[in-house]
C-alpha cells in the first residue's frame, strides 16, 4: 500500500492521462446572442460535492435550451481534465491546479470563468499543526493525479518543502485516504467535501489549513468552469449559456443553502443532506463576481512551477488556456 513516488512517475501519470493538442482559435463575438448551437451537454460528476452549482444546474440548463444533459463520472483530478481534453466531457467545474497541468502540456482545454472559492481542508492528527510539519509524515492521497495530491504538493512547495522528497505519500486506489486517516495509518490528508464535514461530525482530526478561510489559498478561486477547446470554439453560445446557468446556480447555492442541499439529494448527487448543507454554508459561493480567475491561474501556475509540476509561465498558461469573453459579457448582463 505505501509507496514512494518520483517526479518522473508523477509526470508519467499525467502523460498517460493527457491528450495532446494544438492551441485553438478564439471564436466569434457573442453580441446579440442567438439560439444555442447544440442542445446536448456533457458535464463531469466527481466525488466532490463542492461542485454543487453544476449538480443543481439541471433546470437552469434546460431553461437555456439544453435537452440532453449528461453527467460523466470523473475522478476529480487529472483524469477529469483528460476527459475534458478528449471531449468526453464538454464543460465542467474543476479545481484550477489540475486544469493548468494539462494546459502546460498543450492539451485542448479552455477555462472560461471562476465559480467558487475553497473546497479543500488539510486534516491531520496531533503530530501535524502546520504545513511544514508534514515533513517526514505519512500523507494520504487517492493517486498521483488526484487534485488533493497536486494541491498539497503546491502547499508544501510554497513553505519550502520538497513535496516529493520530504513527504511520505501513501496512495491506494482501494482505500480512501479518509478511511486510512480514521484507522490511524496516515498522519494527514487533504480532504474535500463531504469528507471534512463527515470527520467533523465524528470529531476526528483537526483542520490545519482550510482553503476557504486561510490565506493565500482563500484569496483565489478553487473551481473554475473549463471546456474542451474544440467544444468552446464550435459552440460559443452554448458555452455562454452553460456558464450563465452555473453562475445562477452558484448564486442559488449562496442564497439558499438548504434548498440547494435538497436539490443535491433529490438529484442523487449525495445521500447526506446534513453534510451537503454544512458544506454549502461553509464554502464561499458568493465570490464569482468579486474574484479574478486570471489572478487565480497566475497564482496556481506559479505554485505549480515551484513544485516542479509545470514548465510554462503564467502568461503562457493564460494565453493558451483561457477565454474570458463569456465571463466578461455575463458580468455586464447578470448584475447582483
Amino acid at each position, binding site marked *: 500500500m505505501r509507496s514512494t513516488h518520483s517526479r518522473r512517475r508523477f509526470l508519467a501519470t499525467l502523460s498517460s492521462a493527457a491528450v495532446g493538442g494544438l492551441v485553438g482559435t478564439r471564436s466569434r463575438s457573442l453580441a446579440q446572442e442567438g439560439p444555442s448551437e447544440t442542445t446536448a451537454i456533457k458535464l463531469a460528476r466527481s466525488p466532490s460535492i463542492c461542485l454543487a452549482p453544476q449538480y443543481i444546474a439541471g433546470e437552469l440548463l*434546460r431553461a437555456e435550451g439544453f435537452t440532453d444533459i449528461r453527467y460523466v463520472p470523473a475522478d476529480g483530478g487529472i483524469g477529469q481534465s483528460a476527459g475534458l481534453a478528449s471531449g468526453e466531457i464538454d464543460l465542467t467545474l474543476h479545481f484550477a491546479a489540475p486544469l493548468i497541468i494539462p494546459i502546460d502540456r498543450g492539451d485542448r482545454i479552455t477555462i472560461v470563468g471562476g465559480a467558487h472559492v475553497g473546497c479543500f481542508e488539510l486534516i491531520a492528527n496531533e503530530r501535524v499543526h502546520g504545513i511544514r510539519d508534514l515533513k517526514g509524515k505519512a500523507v494520504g492521497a487517492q493517486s498521483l493525479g488526484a487534485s488533493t495530491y497536486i494541491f498539497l504538493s503546491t502547499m508544501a512547495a510554497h513553505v519550502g518543502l520538497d513535496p516529493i522528497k520530504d513527504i511520505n505519500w501513501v496512495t491506494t486506489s482501494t482505500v480512501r485516504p479518509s478511511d486510512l486517516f480514521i484507522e490511524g495509518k496516515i498522519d494527514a490528508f487533504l480532504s474535500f467535501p463531504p469528507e471534512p464535514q463527515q470527520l467533523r461530525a465524528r470529531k476526528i482530526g483537526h483542520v490545519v489549513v482550510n482553503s476557504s478561510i486561510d490565506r493565500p489559498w482563500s484569496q483565489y478561486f478553487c473551481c473554475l468552469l473549463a471546456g474542451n477547446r474544440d467544444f468552446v470554439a464550435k459552440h460559443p453560445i452554448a458555452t455562454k449559456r452553460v456558464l450563465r*446557468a452555473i453562475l*445562477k446556480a452558484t448564486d442559488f447555492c449562496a*442564497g439558499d443553502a438548504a434548498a440547494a442541499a*435538497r436539490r443535491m439529494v433529490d438529484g442523487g448527487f449525495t445521500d447526506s443532506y446534513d453534510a451537503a448543507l454544512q458544506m454549502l454554508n461553509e464554502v464561499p459561493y458568493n465570490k464569482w463576481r468579486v474574484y479574478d480567475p486570471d489572478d487565480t491561474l497566475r497564482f496556481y501556475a506559479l505554485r505549480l512551477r515551484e513544485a516542479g509540476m509545470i514548465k510554462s509561465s503564467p502568461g503562457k498558461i493564460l494565453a493558451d488556456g483561457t477565454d474570458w469573453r463569456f465571463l466578461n459579457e455575463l458580468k455586464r*448582463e447578470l*448584475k447582483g
Partner: protein
Amino acid sequence: MRTALVLAFATAAVLLLTSLARWPSHDIPRAHVAAEPSLPRIAPAPEFTLTSQDGAPVRLADFRGKVVAVTFIFTMCTSTCPVLTPMMSFVQDQLGRDFGEKIVFMSITVDPERDTLPVLKDYARAFGANPVGWFFLTGEAHAIRDVTRRYGVFAAKTESGDVDHTFLTSIIDPRGILRVQYLGARFDSEEFRRDLLSLVNEP
C-alpha cells in the same frame, strides 16, 4: 395568519425604507445617468400574457415604449422575497412621475396555486405598490412554468408546499429587448434605478 404575515413583511419593509430614505425623491441628475455605459442587448425579451391582481390581462408586448422590470416572487416566501419586494417598492417611490408613465414593474408569482388574485392584491397593497405601474401577475401553472423557464428562472415546489426558486429581475427596454438581469435580492437599488432611467433616456 396570512394577513399577519403580510403585515409583518410590510412593517419590515417600512423599516427598511425608512433606513434607506436618504436619497432625494425622483430627480436624479440625468447627466450622471447618461454618463453610464449603455447596457448590453441580450436578446428579445420572452413574451407572455398573464393576469394582474385586478383580474386584467397583462401582455408584455402592450408595454412597448416603456421600460419594464420583471421579477419572480411568491407571497408566502419568508426568506428573500420580503427583501426584494420592499426594495422595489423603495425604487418605485424614488422614480416619481416616471413610474407608471415610463417605467413599470411586473412581479410574477411562482406559486399560482396559493397566490390567488385576492392574495396578490393584499400583498401589493401591503407593500405600497402603485397600481398605475406595478402589476402582480399570475396565470395557469403551465403558463407560469413556461415564463419562468424562458426567463431562466428555476422554481420548484417543495414537500412543505413552499417554492425553491432563483431570484432574477430582468430589465426590458422600450423596444422589448432584454438588457440586463439582476441575480438575487440584495442587489444595489441605486444601480437598479440608474439602469431603469438610463433606458428611459436612451436615444
